[in-house]
């Protein structure tokens, strides 16, 4: 790796917050104890779908130790939601509940026990409505409606696009293949359960500490739902104990504690139970998918047509974006000259789905990669070789007008093929053992903001103290992924100082410039650019002052190793602390801002806003499995994964993200499922919602590929989500290689494998997966000329930096 030119970038340093996390000193939201603090508890719905006839809080109010009880009527009648187009949630439901776990009333009391007791003493009368528990049911009927808005009864959104004439592509193809897949819903399962603490100051201002990935959106939601000027609200994201997309929406409990704190005149804390976290959800959408491709005999794709039937749950959340993501990134990995996508998201009476690591793309990735495995088998091609041949080219556009900059996919493929011994293993291992291949790509930050505006997506302030200490103030949110560390490395590199001399203050709406949040793999690129720019501006000021003192031109100076010195005469220079004094003497207080706005490269059609990104990461993966033919149990023995991260600002952190993604992907592939029975979440606990343990986690061989993308800070692209994507299909394809069974739906449970093998014994196709699709008429597609193969916009920088 090319780290010579840098002092900090590319070095395997420990995270800046490693110590406090390791020794337990980090203060998570639930660790806040303020004087006179009260504890809140929410009374939630017992029914998946019902009208609220009456809420009687008398008994709760009478319980000693109770300070306040609120219902939906105690809030301004305004709804909220993360997307401007889906403002469909209430702080507390007033007239209707749409899932078991919907919030109805809340209590603040002297302690948690009393609050819980009081919550149970609230009497709720319901008029029960028939629940809708699946996308099929939702699309099949129009009598029962969950919401009064959307593109049809129980249809939140229906979309269709066609880029080029796909039918023409199918006509030219040597092989046209159709397959149907189902990707079961699953949840994030962060270790930390959501918690929030609200406090009102005597002058009527609100402070909220919360375990959130998006304090800026929480800030906006509080202002809206409490009808308060945003200037009087301060939102601070406490260190987050894992998010994975589960803490990117504003939540009812955050608004509720704010109101309870106002009413009681006390700080109010809420810590959700694990079961309540399952009700917050916003996890992976269950998606039923149909995919059709026309290919040449070499496996080159001539046209692709995908359909997604998306089970949204009870509310909108990010759903419109999630739905579009089930189609938008299908074109970024392989050359797809003609592309058609149709999708529908339905409302159901289950906890709302939203963005989980990979947001909307692991499902279609599963479909595409399993489908291509079948295509390769049918064409008698090596699946890795075939993928290599059809990988996209760098600096081109996709059919749906996305701009690709660097692409290390071919190198990723070569590296995992080599490392895993793919050629010696595929179709050659003994019965019960197999290898599977899959690739993917993912965005490095959404190109468009969630609410329409032309402001930067991220901002930072870098401030230099007279003693040489540096502070970074940035809205970015540390959720364990290492964003505080990345900001530190970038600034340390720019200023040539030791990372230890830097402090970061992040995610505080009073003190730090806005960053949109830790989602869509945007922080390293966007906040990284903002911090780099601020630091560069500071460096310019310092160099100007030092140049004057040393009587050289500023351009002759460099900052490195804690000094500012003449490049060609390193002896001549000053320490960074002296430079700070010189700088402040010359310029006054040393603080500079930086900000970042992504390039505007979306196509000119409605719905083009989801998919564009400054650049895309690429991944290739090989999974090796053992399948027990008697029990159907699948054991993943090894995973090789190569990830094009542009540049690893810290290879340790990138490897951590890759390994974490593999682990999470394996859970989705093999066991995790969000399932319901009689309208209730069947298994809302860490014991029964099966997620793999370290014992199920195989040896993971991570290979980092560096393409040094001109769009990223120091060339960096994303690493937090993309590496999850190829894992489930690689496992499915490996299961097929091992025992000849196609499991066309996740999770690939032992029962399904055993059933497929049973079918094989009976002489039937050894496949388990969805058999049919719901009847649904998609809207007429928006027809747009395919941009496939066009050169990237002139606005795209070509490798200049790094």
């Amino acid at each position, binding site marked *: 790796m090319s780290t010579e030119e840098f002092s900090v970038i590319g070095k395997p340093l420990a995270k800046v917050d490693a110590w406090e996390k390791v020794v337990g000193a980090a203060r998570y939201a639930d660790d806040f104890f303020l004087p006179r603090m009260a504890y809140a508890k929410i009374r939630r719905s017992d029914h998946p779908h019902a009208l609220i006839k009456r809420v009687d809080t008398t008994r709760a109010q009478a319980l000693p130790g109770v300070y306040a009880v609120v219902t939906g009527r105690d809030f301004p009648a305004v709804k909220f939601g993360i997307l401007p187009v889906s403002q469909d949630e209430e702080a507390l439901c007033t007239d209707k509940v749409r899932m078991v776990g919907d919030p109805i009333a809340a209590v603040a009391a002297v302690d*948690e026990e009393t609050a819980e007791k009081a919550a*149970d003493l609230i009497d709720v009368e319901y008029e029960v409505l028939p629940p809708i528990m699946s996308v099929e049911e939702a699309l099949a009927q129009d009598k029962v409606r969950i919401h009064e808005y959307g593109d049809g009864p129980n249809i939140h959104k229906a979309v269709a696009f066609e880029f080029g004439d796909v039918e023409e592509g199918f006509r030219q193809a040597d092989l046209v293949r159709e397959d149907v897949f189902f990707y079961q819903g699953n949840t994030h399962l962060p270790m930390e359960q959501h918690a929030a603490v609200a406090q009102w100051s005597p002058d009527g201002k609100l402070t909220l500490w919360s375990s959130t990935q998006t304090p800026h959106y929480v800030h906006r939601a509080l202002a809206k739902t409490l009808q308060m000027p945003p200037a009087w609200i301060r939102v601070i994201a406490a260190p987050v104990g894992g998010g994975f997309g589960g803490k990117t929406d504003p939540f009812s409990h955050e608004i509720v504690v704010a109101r309870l704190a106002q009413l009681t005149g006390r700080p109010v804390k809420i810590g959700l139970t694990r079961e309540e976290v399952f009700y917050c959800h916003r996890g992976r959408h269950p998606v039923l998918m149909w995919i059709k491709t026309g290919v040449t005999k070499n496996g080159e794709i001539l046209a692709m047509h995908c359909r997604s039937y998306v089970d949204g749950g009870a509310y909108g959340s990010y759903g419109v974006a999630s739905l579009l993501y089930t189609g938008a990134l299908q074109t970024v990995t392989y050359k797809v000259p003609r592309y058609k996508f149709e999708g529908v998201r339905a409302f159901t009476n289950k906890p709302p789905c939203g963005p989980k690591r990979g947001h909307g793309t692991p499902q279609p990735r599963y479909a595409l990669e399993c489908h291509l495995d079948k295509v390769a088998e049918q064409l008698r091609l090596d699946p890795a070789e075939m993928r290599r041949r059809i990988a996209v080219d760098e600096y081109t556009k996709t059919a749906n007008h996305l701009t690709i900059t660097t692409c290390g996919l071919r190198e990723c493929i070569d590296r995992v093929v080599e490392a895993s011994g793919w050629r010696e293993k595929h179709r050659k291992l003994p019965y019960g053992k197999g290898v599977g291949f899959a690739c993917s790509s993912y965005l490095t930050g959404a190109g468009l903001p969630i609410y329409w505006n032309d402001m930067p997506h991220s901002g930072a302030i870098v401030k230099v103290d007279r003693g040489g200490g540096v502070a970074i103030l940035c809205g970015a949110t540390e959720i364990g992924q290492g964003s505080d560390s990345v900001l530190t490395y970038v600034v340390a590199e720019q200023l040539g100082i030791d990372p230890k001399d830097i402090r970061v203050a992040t995610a505080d709406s009073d003190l730090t410039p806005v960053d949109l949040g830790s989602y869509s793999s945007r922080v390293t690129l966007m906040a990284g650019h903002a911090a780099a720019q601020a630091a560069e501006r500071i460096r310019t000021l310092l160099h100007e002052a030092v140049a004057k003192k040393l009587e050289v031109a500023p351009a002759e100076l460099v900052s490195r190793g804690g000094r500012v010195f003449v490049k060609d005469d390193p002896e001549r220079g000053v320490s960074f602390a002296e430079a700070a004094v010189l700088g402040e003497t010359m310029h006054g207080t040393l603080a500079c801002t930086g900000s970042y706005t992504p390039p505007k490269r979306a196509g000119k059609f409605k719905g083009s806003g989801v998919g564009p990104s400054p650049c895309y990461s690429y991944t290739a993966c090989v999974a090796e499995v053992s399948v027990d*033919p008697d029990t159907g149990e699948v054991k993943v023995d090894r995973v090789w994964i190569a990830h094009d991260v542009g540049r690893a600002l810290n290879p340790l952190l990138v490897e951590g993200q890759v390994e974490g993604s593999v682990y999470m992907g394996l859970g989705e592939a093999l*066991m995790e499922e969000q399932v319901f029975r009689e309208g209730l979440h069947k298994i809302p606990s860490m014991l*029964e919602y099966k997620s793999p343990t370290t014992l199920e986690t195989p040896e993971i061989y991570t290979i980092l590929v560096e393409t040094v993308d001109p769009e990223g800070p120091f060339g960096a692209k994303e690493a937090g989500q993309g590496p999850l994507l190829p894992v489930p299909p690689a496992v499915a394809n490996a299961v097929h290689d091992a025992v000849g069974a196609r499991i066309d739906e996740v999770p690939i449970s032992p029962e399904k494998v055993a059933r497929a093998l049973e079918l094989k014994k009976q002489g039937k196709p050894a496949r388990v997966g969805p058999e049919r699709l719901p009847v649904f008429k998609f809207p007429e597609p928006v027809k747009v000329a395919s941009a496939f193969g066009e050169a990237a916009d002139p606005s795209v920088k070509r490798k200049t930096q790094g």
Partner: protein
Amino acid sequence: MMRLPPFTYLAPLSVGEAVRMMADHGPEAMFVAGGTDLYPNMKRRQFEPKVLVGLRGIRELVGVRGEATTGLVIGAGTTLTDVSEHPAVREHVPALAVAAGLVSTPPLRNMGTIGGNVCVDPRCNYYNQSYQWRRAIGFCMKKDGDICLVAPGSSRCWAVSSTDTAPVLWSLGARARLVGVGGERVVPVASLFKDDGIDYLAKARDEVLTEILLPPVDGLRCAYLKLRRRGSFDFPVLGVAVALSLDGGRVKTAKIVLGAVASQPREAVEAGALLVGERLTPALIAEVAGVAARPSKPLDNTDLTHPYRKKMTKVFVARALRRLAGLPDSPENEEEVA
């Protein structure tokens, strides 16, 4: 977070004191040993005892005594970690060491005791849920309600016996010492259970399980296999314990006991009888496994589907017997090893 209901904790130092305290407080009181089963259940309000009589301070309940040849004696308060790591247990009754070592997780095995494991509350995924969840679906008869949600027409509870060690102890022919206000008695582990998800122990409330008495091991071979989703944490959704003694290559005695397929461990009596006097051939094993699966009647109230658990009973019994016969797990690999 979930909170424990309020209770008084009593800490007796002897079995006699514990029994008296229990008798004094009547139905309001419960014993607690490691608490790894009881405390989570209390948080979900499956139990709301006003008084807990803690057994952790009673020294006489802890430890493994005696010789394997005359019969090991395991104090009920011995932790699962200590049972699973005890050299004599590992050597002479490996199935017990395995079963104890497969319970939940290392931290829970450091707290959980073998006595508590034998007495573990039968489980059901309509029941091992929070109070609020149970209220939402409608309480069942095991706690707060009067119907069964798994078998709605049924007048009894079908919660699943989920102990890992009891099937093994049963297969070994172990006995249990119980001490209560009425005195002391020793009963076979096999008669410690009742096939009822609520009233699952054939012991008086005030009786403490003090010891497990293992029979002398003499040419005994035993095995335990556990079906669950993950390599840690998970309760069994099927357990198979087999104990055999051989005489000149022929089976002298045999017991096959199934766990987690009924409200108590269930002995596959007929299957065991088929083995006696015979050689452990692959063909016999296959036949016996089929017969052993018959009493396996799982219902839809645990992880994995019940038809699958039923199907796996046969596979697991065959595997356990094949292992004891020195055969590879699956008949398909037979030649490879032979």
